[in-house]
């Protein structure tokens, strides 16, 4: 009976974490380029249940069957589904349609990745994210990966990331993709980092200038999930309560004459 108490409590903890995740998704329903996450729960591995009893052969265990002893968090799934594109008419808003990430440089010099392509020109004339991280591009002449120096915001960006300025082309945006995008780690600020895998040059994408990619959170889906979570949480809570009642009876009434 005590074991059942823990099984239900574990169910409640897992539902709580799922709700935390739904809240996170809903909190970012208006965050550009946000990708929703989902927590995947699974049952504990099954264990055999045996009964110890006395029979003619003496004291021995008889197998009754198998059961799960609870639920646990198994995985976190990043849903990289395309968000809808919204037109802004701002020449520094770039949206990736398809698979790919802009390469940016963090303050410590490491590269990180983002799909949030609403950029600005910083005080040194370089293309940067709104937070101030430099956007990386490949130099047209020597192929170096470097920050992109712009002379004006009158830029034309082609579908393959080639930046054309009024006085010619200089850089191509470094758009990358990954074999296992699920291994990307979220840093906040709409930024991802990747450890253990070298980025590949993106292929399956097309860049749209003057657009932003909206969040791919679907409010309806999250709402339904939320209903399911609260009810499932409630059932687990009821089970705990009724176990408490049964335990109460066992403790207080069984010994009564």
């Amino acid at each position, binding site marked *: 009976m005590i074991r059942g108490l823990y099984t239900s409590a*574990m169910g*409640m*903890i*897992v539902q*709580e*974490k799922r*709700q*935390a*995740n*739904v*809240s*996170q998704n*809903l*909190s*970012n*329903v*208006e*965050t*550009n380029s*946000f990708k929703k*996450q989902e*927590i995947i729960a*699974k049952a*504990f591995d099954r264990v055999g249940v045996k009964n110890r009893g006395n029979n003619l052969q003496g004291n021995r265990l008889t197998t009754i069957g198998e059961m799960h002893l*609870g*639920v*646990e*968090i*198994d*995985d*976190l799934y990043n849903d990289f589904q395309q968000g809808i594109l919204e037109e802004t*008419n*701002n020449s520094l808003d770039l949206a990736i349609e398809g698979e790919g990430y802009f390469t940016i440089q963090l303050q410590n010099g490491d590269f990180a990745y983002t799909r*949030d392509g*609403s950029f*600005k*020109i*910083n*005080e040194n*004339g370089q293309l940067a994210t*709104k*937070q101030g991280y430099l956007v990386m591009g490949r130099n047209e002449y020597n192929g170096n990966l470097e920050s992109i120096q712009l002379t004006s915001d009158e830029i034309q960006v082609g579908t393959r990331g080639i930046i054309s300025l009024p006085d010619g082309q200089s850089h191509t945006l470094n758009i990358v993709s990954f074999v296992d995008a699920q*291994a990307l*780690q*979220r*840093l*906040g*600020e*709409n930024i991802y980092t990747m450890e253990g895998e070298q980025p590949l040059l993106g292929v399956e994408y097309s860049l749209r200038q003057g657009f932003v990619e909206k969040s791919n959170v679907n*409010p309806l889906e*999250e*709402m339904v999930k*939320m209903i399911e*979570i*609260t009810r499932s*949480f409630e059932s687990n*809570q009821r089970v*705990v*309560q009724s176990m*408490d009642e049964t335990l109460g009876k066992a403790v207080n009434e069984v010994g009564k004459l």
Partner: protein
Amino acid sequence: MYRILQTGRTGLEALQKKMDTISNNIANVQTHGYKGMEVQFEDLVYDEVANKGVPLSQEAREKPIEIGTGSRVKSTERRFIQGILEETTYPYHLAIEGEGFFGVQDANGETYLTRDGGFTLDSQGQLVDSRGNHVIMDTYSPLSQWSKNGIVINEAGVVSGLDDIGQPVEIGSIRLFNVPDKSILISKGDNYFSTENLEVIYTNENINEDWGSIHQGYLEKSSVNIGKELVDMLVTQRAYQINTKSIHSADEMWSMVNQLKR
């Protein structure tokens, strides 16, 4: 549970800021030279779920399973897009088509930039804006002497007065200003902008660059697109509402936890 409530709260706060911006834009839909603002969001740091007592499978222990902690405003910025020019035929109404700004100087000698060209002549015959601050221009001859016959301002900002036989005489020129990076401009109210570092304000005398043409007898209307703002308002309102639901849901769960022991 507390974390979930906070996650919902961050969403509400961010969306509230967006709502404030939208209402400010809508309030300024008739303000000449007004430029609409825009709010963008970003997600907050992610937190590992692997606390004590959280059941995790073997695979889940090997990789970080992280849940985010909400959202916040990433940037609130003004979009300097051209507004529509509206004809008023009043000779001292000026509108800029292009990048630049008019400069005005208040009584303390403080310089501001503005796109609102609703100017007029003051009692001394100087070009002033609706606040009575002087428009920065070069004058070779007082405007008041010429105003009876009319004053012509061409697209380059050159001010000419008409003499008694209707011949134009150059009497001054209006300066245009610009900054290399408009995101450093600070709103000062009254359609004024300023920068912390005044050195980055250039006049078109120092730099030979085209910052737009001046149109006499026109005013630049607000760049706010009321349709877009109204749709944004609906979306923001609904997003706010759904975040209150997630808070409510977390609250309900917490209440159930409190009822565990009766």
